[in-house]
């Protein structure tokens, strides 16, 4: 091509840009299902429905571990001593400041329900171990107190509380 009018140029440029844009839109739309398929499928979501746990067999000072959505949940019936220790800590000294009252349900002070996954790198802390009458993570030595709050070691945050509610005094619903 030797001489082309500027109008011809712009018409062609528009065509090239439109084609390129359509190709880009098509490619982006194609990527969506390819990535979306990695998310949990309908079976996994359905299996992640709330569970009910009968807590009546758990005596004072004992704990059980149940699984919800593949995560271990500690349900601990705390002793008087553990409750007192948890309540009298100076909250502002904590790495992740939270009062004990924010970590248990009102009127159910003795029941601690936490997700048993260390906030450092995901190992499972051992209950009733460590210096704080709570949890001790064997992987990298993080220690949590009887309220599941981080007190020592590399973990940055307290053990998370799963969504749960008391259905009755002896039954909780997690999720």
């Amino acid at each position, binding site marked *: *091509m030797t001489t082309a009018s500027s109008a011809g140029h712009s018409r*062609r440029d528009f*065509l*090239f840009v*439109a*084609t390129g844009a*359509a*190709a880009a*839109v*098509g490619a982006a*739309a194609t990527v969506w*299902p*390819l990535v*979306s*398929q*990695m*998310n949990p*499928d*309908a*079976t996994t979501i*359905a*299996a992640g*429905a709330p569970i009910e746990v009968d807590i009546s*067999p758990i005596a004072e000072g004992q704990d059980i571990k149940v699984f919800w959505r593949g995560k271990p949940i500690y349900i601990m019936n705390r002793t008087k001593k553990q409750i007192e220790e948890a309540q009298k800590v100076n909250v502002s000294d904590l790495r992740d400041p939270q009062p004990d009252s924010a970590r248990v349900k009102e009127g159910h002070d003795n029941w601690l329900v936490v997700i048993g996954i260390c906030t450092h790198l995901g190992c499972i802390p051992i209950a009733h171990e460590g210096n704080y009458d709570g949890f001790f993570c064997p992987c990298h030595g993080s220690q949590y107190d009887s309220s599941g709050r981080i007190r020592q070691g590399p973990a940055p945050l307290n053990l998370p509380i799963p969504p749960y509610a008391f259905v009755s005094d002896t039954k909780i619903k997690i999720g």
Partner: protein
Amino acid sequence: MSGPSDFQPQNSVLKWIERRLPIFGLVHSSFVAYPTPRNLNYWWTFGGILSFMLAIQIVTGVILAMHYTPEATMAFNSVEGIVRDVNYGWLLRYLHSNGASMFFIAVYIHMFRGLYYGSYKEPREILWILGVIIYLLMMATGFMGYVLPWGQMSFWGATVITNLFSAIPYVGESIVTLLWGGYSVGNPTLNRFFSLHYLLPFVIAGVVVLHVWALHVAGQNNPAGVEPKTEKDTVRFTPYATIKDAFGLSCFMLFYAWFVFYIPNYLGDPDNYVVANPGVTPAHIVPEWYYLPFYAILRSIPNKLFGVVAMFGAILVLAFLPWLDSAKTRSSRYRPLAKQFFWIFVVVCLGLGYLGAQPPEGIYVIAGRILTVCYFAYFLIVLPLLSRIERPRTVPNSIADDVLAKGRYVASIAVAAAVAGLLMLGGGSQAQAQEHDTPNPPSLTWSFAGPFGKFDEAQLQRGYKVYKEVCSACHSMNLLHYRNLADPGGPGFSIAQATALASEIKVQDGPNDAGDMFERPGRIADKFPAPFPNENAARAANGGAAPPDLSLMAKARGYERGFPQFIFDAFAQFQEKGPNYIHAILTGFEDKPPAGVTIPDGSYYNKYFPGHAIKMPKPLSDGQVTFDDGSPATVDQYATDVSAFLMWAAEPKLEERKRIGLQVMIFLIIFAGLLYFTKKKVWANAH
């Protein structure tokens, strides 16, 4: 791949990399500056289309492998899990299963193009042989992929194909045992086929690199069959060939999308929606359509060993083509006799494909033998002879001369007809053995038919009621969960309604802390309850015939619509054989068989059941189920509603599929239009 590059990057980072690894230069010389004959027609775009299909198959395949379980008891259900539960799983599965067919359609066009234009001749022999190797690898990969869903056709296809090796004298049986990893096709076979099915596409990709390398050394052939002499004969690969390939590809994608979104099971066999059963062979075994010509050759020879030898020979003979056809003129355009024989050969291949789908009896066997002789005669007699006696027309002096002499669309149109023929073959693979006196079910009007089809929620709810109150006494629906009743595009129950329906059943759960099993009310995540604890119990309670699971029934039954109706079905998007058949069975009971027909004890006469003797007694009678919406309480109404319900159960993502399909088709039409005009603009400079 085509010698040293003159590519000089400006950017300093690119320069730094290029000095150490000249990859940009390689890409530039292979796919930008590479000279391509300017007279290539659209049949030359199928190389690019094939690369695209290989990429699609690898990407979707790797993703499917993330969700698939290669274990004999779980494979079938894991595939259904992909289709039903994984986000866009239905799309990925249909892209992959139809992608295999598209891959073969493209490769057959590519091969016939090579055959017609003599692309295998000196100096492209290695290029051609590498292509034959790729084709063999594709066949192996396609076969093993078809085994993975572990349906009836998977299982029996695997059995029949692996048994081909038993024809080898002395060591055959040992080889077959080795392939199976057992005494029959079973879990070890499935495991190794999965492993190899994952491996081979990457081997194909490796051979494709060699194929492209060889291509870029010899240069592309072209419709005139004369080598480029001057620069006027060629254009740069980019933008000219790139944009032309892109336009061709976008048209091919439209074709592909039609199958994926509107007729995804058209090329498949209904029997493969029945889980593999080592005790029962389907009445009529057919391979996937792309193997049918070779299958016909196998069956034509009444000797096991020679049948197998002929079948493999039919493929291997292709590798010797460069020496069988020694004619100096490449393109059949200038070979009047070779051109005619080429088209006869195409018809022979299509004919063999058609015969491969027919039952091996009577006229079909004789026709198969004649065409088998024709197939081999083309390679072993016609081509060697033609190269000696044919007097070719004068070829153009140069490609530029060829471009100036325009107007050669006849051949292209004829090839387009051949493509349509290939498509017909695809439909042919659906052929089902039919009792000749069994009438085809009448075609009903379904709300979910056609490109805008949607399920009728009220109808699905009524159908569910019929299933629950009648069918579920004997038939399980193991793939259905109560949560599905509230899924979008389904019967439209609310979550609360589905939960209430689920809580009506008792589910055994456990063990509890004491180690005991216990019963609890059903949850929304639970499956529909099965009427019998296992298949033996179902068999014992039903006079020896276990009532089949109904989850996939609407896709697991079909009937032959015959030629040429099945071709029109591809265009009309006819996908409702299953519900038509179920409705026909449910309404086809007759109290007394017609005169002269005897039905064994414990069986019942059904007009539409193949063989007419069905073990299921007439399940529905007028007034049996009461509908809340005032629909008539008639057998016909029940049958229609439950058929629609079963169609939804078999294809729960149908609405989503058709909705996304419409968006994709609109996009592709616009995109292809844009590419067409862009291509015209780009090529305006080249003429």
